[in-house]
């Protein structure tokens, strides 16, 4: 009798363990959010990104009971520096046993971090970094690019603005990897759509506070669109001075390469009103987005930026891939992610392209509303065009990615 009970227990417990079989390294999935916790991007990503990843982890564990208590989120500051990013990545993987690196604002820091992750065979999901190199010439097996990239920004905004009549451009860009890349992509998109450049683009120092020289040059060139590829604090200065020099009144529109909600908040939306930009998401896109954003705001105290929403989505999709693979082994997770199709509150009609690991999704070219048009606080964007996932990103035929 006693033996029978023992055998029965043994059988039952083995069945139970097979049902929930998860081969997790050290029985925990650790999500390392490597982000800017102290510098210029700390507001648009930063603590909000860590919070978003934590929300995704909690939601995942609630939805998948067998993973309860098994996901940990760690937030680490890379100070937007490539060397710090690569050191921290190595440290997180070697000492803290992190299974995935998340977020990675600042292109140079992102490139440095994913290289270390690749060597150590750890998955990295870049959300806030923009360079197309991540899925193009520098693509690799363990790196996925989520949310947006420079091609998508240029393709969305350059095309939409040009087709709406903004067919002559004068572009300025910050003179570093991100700006140079975005200028190339934007110029190509404008020309593709039948527009032309009123003068060759000008590289501006980075960082820079005074843009009056270029604004005066724009006054004399009289293009239809003044295109600025600056981001963050530099963008805020450009737009402030664009208004000061009265370019809008002179009929020169504003085309913005990369725009975050926090930039608009920093200057007041009227300074940006009418400008076009392309974003992967915004909080009042629809009911699903609003529901999630309200939940985020309740715990974090601020509305989410699209970067932070992207971190939630990327974290959740990574964890789902672990659940499908039933292990946190990188190669198995990569396999589970590749070719995967999904739609969540953030990423619509999304598909993980196996050839270059670009996560493609619907994106939106938006126009900044004036405060008179806003219906509630933080109501910043109205959709000008929805760009379907299949057309939003670099076509595979143009990709230089050789996945190894």
């Amino acid at each position, binding site marked *: 009798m006693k033996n029978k009970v023992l055998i029965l227990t043994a059988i039952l417990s083995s069945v139970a363990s097979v049902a929930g079989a998860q081969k997790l390294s050290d029985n925990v999935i650790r999500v390392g959010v490597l982000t800017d916790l102290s510098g210029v991007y700390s507001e648009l990503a930063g603590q909000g990104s860590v919070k978003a990843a934590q929300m995704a982890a909690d939601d995942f564990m609630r939805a998948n009971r067998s993973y309860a208590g098994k996901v940990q989120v760690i937030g680490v500051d890379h100070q937007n520096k490539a060397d710090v990013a690569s050191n921290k990545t190595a440290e997180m993987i070697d000492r803290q046993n992190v299974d995935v690196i998340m977020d990675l604002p600042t292109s140079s820091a992102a490139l440095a971090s994913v290289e270390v992750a690749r060597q150590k065979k750890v998955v990295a999901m870049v959300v806030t970094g923009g360079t197309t190199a991540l899925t193009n010439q520098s693509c690799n097996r363990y790196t996925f690019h989520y949310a947006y990239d420079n091609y998508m920004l240029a393709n969305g905004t350059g095309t939409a603005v040009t087709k709406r009549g903004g067919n002559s451009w004068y572009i300025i860009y910050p003179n570093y990897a991100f700006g140079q890349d975005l200028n190339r992509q934007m110029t190509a998109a404008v020309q593709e759509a039948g527009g032309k450049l009123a003068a060759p683009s000008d590289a501006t120092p980075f960082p820079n506070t005074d843009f009056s*020289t270029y604004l*005066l*040059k724009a006054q004399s060139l009289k293009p239809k669109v003044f295109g600025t590829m600056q981001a963050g604090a530099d963008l805020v200065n450009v737009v402030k001075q664009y208004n000061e020099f009265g370019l809008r009144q002179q009929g020169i529109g504003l085309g913005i390469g990369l725009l975050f909600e926090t930039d608009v908040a920093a200057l007041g939306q009227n300074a940006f009103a009418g400008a076009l930009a392309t974003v992967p998401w915004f909080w009042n896109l629809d009911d699903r987005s609003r529901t999630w954003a309200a939940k985020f705001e309740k715990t974090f105290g601020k509305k989410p930026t699209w970067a932070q929403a992207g971190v939630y989505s990327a974290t959740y999709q990574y964890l789902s891939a672990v659940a499908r693979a039933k292990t946190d082994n990188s190669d198995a997770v990569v396999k589970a992610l590749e070719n995967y199709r999904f739609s969540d509150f953030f990423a619509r009609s999304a598909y993980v392209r196996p050839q270059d690991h670009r996560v493609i999704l619907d994106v939106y070219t938006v126009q900044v509303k004036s405060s008179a048009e806003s219906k509630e606080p933080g109501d910043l964007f109205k959709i000008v065009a929805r760009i379907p996932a299949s057309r939003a990103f670099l076509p595979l035929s143009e990709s230089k990615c050789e996945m190894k």
Partner: protein
Amino acid sequence: MNTQLMFIQVFNGLVNGAFFALLSLGLAVIFGLLRIVNFAHGALYMLGAFVAFALGQALGLGFWPALILAPLLVGALGVALERGLLRRLYGLDPSYNLLLTFGLTLLVQDVIKQVMLSRYAVSSAPYTIPQELVGATNLGFVFFPTYRLFVIVFALVVCLATWFVIERTRVGAVIRAATENPTVTQAFGIDVSRWVTIVFGLGVALAALAGVLAAPIYSVEPYMGSELIIVTFAVVVIGGMGSILGSVVTGFAVGVLVALGSALYPPIANTLVFVLMALVLLLRPNGLFGLPEAK
């Protein structure tokens, strides 16, 4: 580039020059009279802009009252710094005051950043141009923002007034005497240490004044001074450490030089200042307006 655009750029350069001049003037006054290399100058400039912004948020005060109040408040902080901290370092190796003021910069920047993030929810704050100066003025060859013209004129007046007070008045004579030979001046019954404090406060107030002037043009953010201060130090070196006239003239000249440079070939604009500095150091180690150090 056509002559009209050149002309516009000269004008444009004068605006940046106005900020360089006001800042380097403050540095020159403090260095020339107290031999303190004030690395915190950029942070105090930012503090001027931030105090103007905060006065508006908290008390609803506009640009004009802020233009007077912010320099007074930040100047008072300067007085406290001199009395509380810098004073203890006189007579010690100059690297001590350098480290102290550099540390102060980091401290002030971080405190302001935390305040802005927690109170105002934005890392850079909007500050608008006063209603009277909105719009553009026709200069005949270009429509130039009225506020920028105001900055040029206002900065010139302040610079000239400062120069006049220090070089041409009795008060200035006392200050110069007090710093040139404290012992003898003290013997005449003049409270030297009080004058040292006043001069430091004045220099700091000039930085804060530049900050208030800058707030409507550039966004108010915690690191707005750190970039500017590097160029300003170059200006001070080019003009001659401690030379008041040198710092003003060089300030405006460098502004124009950078503007012309960025119009002709943008990537070189910021480097131009340091090339000039290197040349000046090679040919005239004491700067364009500097006098050889008295032995």
